[in-house]
């Protein structure tokens, strides 16, 4: 039987997996390591991919999730992994990105997971539901709540940072 190669077009897959991992554990070398490990495992178990069960990205995200869960205990996530910088020296967009990254880093594990899957890996609510074994509606509600918490975090950050307030006023 003819087999579909799940890694036929690797570039967008690498970007999506990395974005998911970075939303989960923070941008940087750890996220790069997890992404590399994910692709190594994917290459090793490429034959086990079944196109009837889902898209290649969903399969890769499943592997990435297991890699994150199986990482050493000393690789605990902290907000240090998320972008931080001296806010006074940065441009508005960069500053906004840092605020966003920091706010995501302070969210709970489950919220980070959902945001990573939806906005990092670009999975649909239905695909996330399949991955979690939950109903699509439940995932949509959970995502909505996670976004609400993220917004609250960001508003808290903006209030505490005069530089961001200034950039917001300029928009």
């Amino acid at each position, binding site marked *: 039987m003819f087999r579909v190669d799940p890694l036929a077009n690797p570039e967008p897959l690498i*970007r999506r997996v*990395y974005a998911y991992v*970075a939303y989960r554990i923070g941008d940087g070398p750890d996220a790069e390591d997890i992404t590399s490990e994910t692709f190594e495992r994917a290459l090793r178990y490429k034959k086990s991919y079944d196109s009837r069960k889902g898209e290649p990205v969903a399969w890769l995200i499943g592997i990435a999730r297991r890699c994150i869960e199986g990482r050493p205990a000393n690789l605990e996530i902290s907000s240090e992994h998320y972008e931080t910088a001296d806010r006074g020296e940065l441009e508005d967009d960069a500053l906004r990105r840092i605020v966003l990254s920091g706010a995501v880093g302070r969210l709970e594990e489950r919220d980070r997971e959902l945001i990573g899957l939806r906005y990092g890996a670009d999975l649909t609510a239905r695909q996330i539901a399949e991955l979690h074994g939950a109903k699509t509606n439940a995932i949509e509600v959970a995502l909505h709540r996670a976004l609400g918490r993220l917004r609250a975090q960001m508003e808290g950050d903006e209030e505490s940072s005069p530089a961001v307030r200034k950039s917001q006023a300029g928009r």
Partner: protein
Amino acid sequence: MRSWRRKRESAGLEAELRANRPEPSPELLYKLEARVREDGRRLRAGSFRIAFAGALAAGVLGALASVGGLGYAATGAGQAVEKATRVVHKHGVTTLHKSAARAQYSKPKAKCPKGKKRVRGKCKKVKKARGVNFRRPPFTG
């Protein structure tokens, strides 16, 4: 009004999350892409070799079949098997039970006693025919 505002804010946040998605470093992207492509090439080369060998075998068989080579090969194989069987198989001493020689030199059967004759393998008394007296014709000179 409030819900519309919230929706707009939510859409803005979603767009922001997508736009500011963490990106892998170009080095990681290049390395992983090269690794994946190399693996794909290796697999393709392997399957190409297998496919080539299969196609070659099929071609040879097709060419042979077109000139009756398959029948020739089958006969040859059959004969080889027969020969091998002959060589390997152990023959005992063949004894012919019915032959001219055996009939000639077989053990002589016992003679029937006087006055008896062998009829269907058994000695039986021969009865003289009665009422028939054979006389020599008279001498006439």
